């Protein structure tokens, strides 16, 4: 099993075997157990089928076979053995479930993640930090994520962390996560949420507590003030072109909540929920025609000239 | 952890004795203790009944936990009742025969009785009234509750297990009968599981303040609903399978290919 999982984890990243949390490990353990039992049952059926097909094929000689229509003992075995297996797995499952999803009671949430059509919003409780799409988490301690939705049902899933949990409008759901090692973990929205469900990907950057703390402080500060004139022009345009009606940039007048928070936009590695790398070229492409880049996204098309595009891009690219 | 003092809460009420006496008297008057097998089964049920209603479980049910009360209900309605019916097997008595003929023609009556009694006793007002009277010397309401549940269990199982085999309902109709009862008790269980707190006043107010296992109200009423739901359904579904089994081995015995 171990070699196989090593092989597979070299093969791909967001696999359920690439466990980075005790929750994922528990699931992998019961998953392996079931795989063994299921393989056994499957082989039983397969071997029986092959034996029957070979041994009892019709022969040209010989009359009717013995017409046996039942056997009480055999039937009881056919019911009893699967029943036993089922009972074993039920109790194992019970145990795993209470380990992975213990009661929340009144434990405060560490991060409140809200799903929007087709981006993620993360509020770090106790701080002013609000990010979009890329989420940082500290390793080593059990974290409680509170999962909400602003529109339709979404689902938060990072395979390396274990279970997934739906985000349902009107209710709060909770998910316990303990990340064991720092690294970058990928996941995806796991409930069909409309046109761009495919590009509602998740990127979690897990850091040591110190680094996480440093990052959190940076994220809580207001946006960097534009240094050069192009970026400054971009800032002005940002307000004039009504970007500020949808987006927030703390420290400026931009106070929208329809779109992702852009206060530290340039500190993110990817944009548009994992669709592409966060480079000025891509930003320019996006601003030129959002509907061509991510068709269906709820950001309208503005007709900008080259200068405006450069200005906005410069402005956004320095929002570290 | 089980409180040792809990074990000591065995209690024999006059009402329980009265209930047993009534049933014994009735059993005697229709069977005159003629068949050994029936007598043994009947004795077993009466002993079970006495034990159940005197046990610490009953004490918990009356004083502490909604879920414990549910367990008692389920056993009375779905185990003691049908077993009582079974203990009348083969008995030939004009009253019983009249009942068998009536329930064979009006099977829905038996169904409504069985299902209705369960629903009626869970009307919060009635339930609380029954609980309020349990302290006195000759508690009428609990007697009424246990007695009616027992009786309802007997009536409900009559079309399936009654003394006259020829007047049993067909196995397939029996399955529909049990399945619809299962659906209805699932609905009740669902309602109780998700009922807003305080619906059952008695337990909400903390019963009589006794809570040996430290279970919260929410957990207790969730468990109560689930007990109504799960074991009940299990009994009904097992009943369905048993009816099928009985049907298949009936008639010309177990033959190859179900020969006519």
């Amino acid at each position: 099993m171990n070699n196989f999982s090593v092989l597979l984890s070299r093969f791909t990243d967001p696999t359920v075997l690439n466990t980075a949390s005790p929750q994922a490990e528990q699931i992998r353990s019961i998953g392996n157990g079931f795989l063994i039992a299921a393989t056994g049952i499957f082989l039983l059926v397969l071997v029986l089928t092959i034996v029957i097909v070979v041994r009892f094929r019709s022969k040209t000689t010989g009359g009717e076979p013995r017409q046996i229509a039942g056997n009480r003992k055999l039937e009881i075995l056919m019911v009893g053995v699967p029943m036993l297996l089922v009972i074993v797995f039920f109790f194992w499952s019970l145990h795993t479930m209470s380990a992975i999803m213990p009661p929340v009671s009144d434990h405060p949430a560490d991060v409140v993640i809200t799903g929007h059509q087709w981006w993620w919003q993360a509020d770090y409780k106790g701080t002013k930090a609000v990010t979009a799409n890329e989420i940082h988490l500290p390793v080593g301690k059990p974290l409680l994520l509170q999962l909400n939705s602003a529109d339709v049902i979404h689902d938060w899933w990072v395979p390396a962390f274990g279970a997934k949990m739906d985000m349902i409008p009107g209710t709060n759901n909770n998910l316990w996560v303990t990340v064991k090692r720092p690294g970058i973990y990928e996941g995806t929205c796991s409930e069909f949420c409309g046109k761009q469900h495919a590009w509602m990907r998740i990127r979690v950057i897990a850091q040591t507590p110190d680094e996480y703390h440093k990052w959190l402080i940076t994220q809580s500060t207001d946006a960097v003030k534009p240094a050069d004139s192009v970026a400054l022009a971009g800032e002005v345009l940002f307000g004039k072109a009504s970007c500020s009606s949808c987006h927030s940039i703390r420290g400026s007048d931009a106070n929208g909540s329809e779109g992702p928070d852009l206060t530290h936009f340039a500190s993110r590695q990817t944009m548009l929920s994992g669709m592409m790398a966060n480079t000025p070229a891509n930003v320019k492409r996006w601003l030129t025609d959002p509907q061509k880049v991510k068709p269906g996204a709820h950001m309208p098309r503005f007709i900008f000239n080259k200068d405006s595009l450069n200005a906005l891009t410069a402005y956004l690219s320095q929002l570290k | 952890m089980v409180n040792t003092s809990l074990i000591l809460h065995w209690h024999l009420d006059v009402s329980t004795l009265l209930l047993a006496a009534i049933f014994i008297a009735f059993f005697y008057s229709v069977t005159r203790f003629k068949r050994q097998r029936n007598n043994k089964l009947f004795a077993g049920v009466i002993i079970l009944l006495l034990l159940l209603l005197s046990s610490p479980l009953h004490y918990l049910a009356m004083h502490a936990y909604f879920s414990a009360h549910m367990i008692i209900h389920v056993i009375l309605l779905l185990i003691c009742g049908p077993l009582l019916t079974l203990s009348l097997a083969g008995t030939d008595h004009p009253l019983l025969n009249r009942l068998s003929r009536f329930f064979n023609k009006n099977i829905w009556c038996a169904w409504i009785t069985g299902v209705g009694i369960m629903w009626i006793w869970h009307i919060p007002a009635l339930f609380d009234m029954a609980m309020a009277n349990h302290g006195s010397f000759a508690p009428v309401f609990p007697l009424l509750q246990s007695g009616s549940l027992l009786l309802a269990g007997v009536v409900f199982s009559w079309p399936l297990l009654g003394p006259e085999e020829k007047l049993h309902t067909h196995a397939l109709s029996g399955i529909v009968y049990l399945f619809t009862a299962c659906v209805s008790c699932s609905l009740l269980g669902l309602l109780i599981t998700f009922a807003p707190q305080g619906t059952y006043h008695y337990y909400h107010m903390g019963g009589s303040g006794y809570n040996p296992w430290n279970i919260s109200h929410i957990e207790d009423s969730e468990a109560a609903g689930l007990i109504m739901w799960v074991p009940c359904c299990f009994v009904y579904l097992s009943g369905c399978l048993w009816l099928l089994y009985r049907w298949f081995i009936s008639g010309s015995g177990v033959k190859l290919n179900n020969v006519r």
Partner: protein
Amino acid sequence: MRIGTERKNMENKLMIKLVVGTEAMFFLSLIMVFVYFSLAPGFVRLQTSELDLRSTGMFSLVLFSSSFTYWRAEKNYHKGNIGMLKLWLIVTFLLGAIFLFGQGKEYIRLFNDHVNLGANTFGTSFFTLTGFHGLHVLVGLIIIAIVTALAVAGDYDEKKSSVISTVGIYWHFVDIVWAVVFFIVYVIPHIR
């Protein structure tokens, strides 16, 4: 072995019972949704303040009595009194129509009070549940009208048809559903 009309009688009765069974499941779904919404705060208050228990109660009695009149119609048919059959059928129809009229009045009053399908979950679930019941009553009335017309035309002069009792099962079902719905929607909020 049963032949001819006797077999057809049994088939039709079984058929309509199955239809009744499946419609019962449909109403069960609508009722469960109503009960689910009724657990939210503020719902019961809307029930007691907006719904007219007395008026609807009286119209309900009208509907229940239509079951009685249909039963009389059936009894007379079996005895061969075709004249009485037609009379009781017509009375049943009228009683059913009066019930629908009462429902219409209730609906209009509620609309004037700005309680409609889109107002809140009470409006949504109330109108859906009672509306579908009303639709079933309407269908029943249409069928009764057809049967009455056929009776007048002489189709039921011999008492061998199963149509009357088959339709009866449907009509009684519609009444039983109303009994349950009325109890849950109109009566229970006053005793909670």
